[in-house]
């Protein structure tokens, strides 16, 4: 039965969930959407981010979000290093399509196995004062466990959007995917720009990982369940569009939440991916694709 409070709560829960999905997908929107690199290992980096949050939270009691922000520069450096390897081994020789994909698959398994060997396979969780608490406005509940990731995701998306739109490096990142030669003629090294952008994409995984472990328990292989969703959001938003990615994430979140509430949760993936197919049938370049 559809009631006003159920509907309002479902939409709000969907918005909050969508915000989290945006945080998961934003790195991929840069790496896959703008650089055209099929980084299938992105969710594994998110899990690495979640473990970083877990380790520092359990040892020093630091807030997971703060850990995510502090860890982002290290993830940036790791990402930049990985791109150099990827470029040297595959992109430079034009083997990035299939061999590159295998490279990222391998990377995903390496991250998972290293986490298993070092930290075992038990579920890991974090402690924070706001987890388990809710904020009630009228008949709408805002669980902090979902609200905090949403707020952080909005800030992260806005930051990346402004960075790409307003700074020289940001514009260069957008340009490198469109016309690499033109960028070279302007005296910019496209490889360095791509390296920077790849690092930026991986840096967001540190924050997304912290948000993931705030929402629920994490074990090394849990990232796999986000591969399909993250790529779907980037495609639905229109490859390379940050604002499109954000809106696509919110749509996916709201659709999932409405289906969970009114139809039955089993239908959620089918309906959400049905929306993706329908959108692509009507707009093959995605919501905000050019």
């Amino acid at each position, binding site marked *: *039965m559809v*009631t006003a409070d159920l509907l309002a709560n479902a939409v709000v829960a969907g918005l909050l969930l969508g915000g989290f999905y945006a945080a998961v997908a934003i790195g991929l929107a840069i790496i896959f959407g703008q650089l055209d690199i099929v980084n299938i290992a992105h969710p594994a980096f998110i899990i690495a981010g979640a473990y970083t949050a877990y380790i520092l939270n359990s040892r020093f009691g630091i807030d997971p979000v703060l850990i995510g922000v502090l860890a982002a520069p290290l993830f940036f450096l790791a990402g930049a290093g990985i791109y150099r390897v990827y470029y040297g081994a595959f992109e430079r020789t034009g083997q990035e399509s299939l061999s590159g994909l295998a490279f990222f698959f391998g990377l995903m398994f390496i991250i998972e196995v290293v986490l298993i060997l070092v930290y075992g*396979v038990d*579920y890991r*969780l974090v402690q924070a004062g706001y987890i388990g608490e809710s904020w009630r406005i009228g008949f709408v509940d805002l*669980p902090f466990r979902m609200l905090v990731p949403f707020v952080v995701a909005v800030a992260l998306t806005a930051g990346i959007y402004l960075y790409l739109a307003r700074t020289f490096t940001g514009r260069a990142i957008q340009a490198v995917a469109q016309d690499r030669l033109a960028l070279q003629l302007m005296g910019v090294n496209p490889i360095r720009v791509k390296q920077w952008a790849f690092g930026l994409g991986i840096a967001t995984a540190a924050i997304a990982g912290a948000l993931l472990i705030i929402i629920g328990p994490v074990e090394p292989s849990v990232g796999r369940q986000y591969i399909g969703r993250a790529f779907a959001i980037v495609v639905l938003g229109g490859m390379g569009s940050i604002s499109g990615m954000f809106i696509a994430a919110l749509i996916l979140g709201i659709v999932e939440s409405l289906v969970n509430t009114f139809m039955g949760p*089993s239908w959620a993936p089918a309906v959400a991916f049905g929306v993706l197919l329908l959108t692509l049938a009507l707009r093959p370049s995605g919501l905000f694709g050019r």
Partner: protein
Amino acid sequence: MVSTARTWFVRTLCAAALAAGMVGIAAAQQPIKIGFSMALTGGLAGAGKGALIAMEIWRDDVNKKGGLLGRPVQLVYYDDATQPANVPGIYTKLLEVDKVDLVVSAYGTNLIAPAMPIIMRKKLVFPSLFGLGVNEEFNYDRYFQIMPSGPDPKVDWTRGFFALAMEQNPKPRTVAIVAADAEFALNAAAGARKNAQNAGLKIVYDKTYPPATTDYTPIVRAIQATNPDIVFVGSYPPDSVGMVKAANEVGLKTKLFGGGMVGLQFAAIQKNLGPMLNGIVNYDFWVPEPTLKFSGVEEFLAKYREAAKGKGVDPYGHYLPPYAYAYLQVLGQAVEATKSLDHGKLAEHMHKTEYDTVVGKVKFGKNGEWARSRVLQVQFRDVQPDNLEQFAGPGKRIVLYPKEWKSGDIVYPYKQ
């Protein structure tokens, strides 16, 4: 010259005799190989690794006492990565390449079922670890399940939860059933449905959810909108955490909440959820309550705690490890009693014998399940925040059902 030849002959003879003796000793000490597949990576690895630790403790205990039939015991195992598709290949390799003498199952319904056709073709005894209703489809007479579900596993598994509910005043009249879209949870939900119908309860919500769900608050809200007296949840560890947190955040009001939530038995999850667990009634198989002090269980758990240190597994091992130890105890006792590795004789013995194990007395019924169900329903009580040690001892998970193992009375309702 003659002397040199004689010396050479004597030396050769001695060497030959020594070699023959060595071969004889080696043959006498040829280990008994027990093969199995286990989830050491992937979704069930947390429990799988804990089970392996328990099995290694059993192997060491047995070998210290001289092994089985005077031969040392060797465990031969491979990681199935929690992928059912890997299981048939692993058992084929164990039987055809490693030539194991005995086999036992992996952990979990989804990983036991794929091994069954191979095991049945070879007519092997198959002690199994925590599979729910696997043999209902196969009807294999050499299958023995250590999980104490009972003779009608799907129904017996949730019988206690509903029996408890119907003993309460005011009597519940409606029930919501929600379960993960996966083998075990669906089986548990099917049993819950039958028990609800038998109890005359009206099912007001009956839905499943995909295990990859991120946010459970919309599901809990949809359940709350139907205003059920009982909420039965069949879930896996990440969803159990999501459900409990969502119920707490939404303020779920119901008389009885829980039933079939996997994960609430694990210390790390218990510590994280803390007081959110209070009042939840959920299944369990062993808890450190005074009514469940079986012979040898404390000694086994002491060894487990030591072995588990630094391995990233459950530090207390109350849930699965005692049963992983016990299913090998049953097999070992059957081998010693029959003085044989003949699978026909072992199966016959396992059908008619009551075994003494660290999880108490184990007697199998005709279908290889426990002859009598011993699925506990325990209630979380007085759980404090951020305290792992509190779960090591009694008082936090009170046994409510079955009556003969009861350690306290229910606090009812859950939340009104």
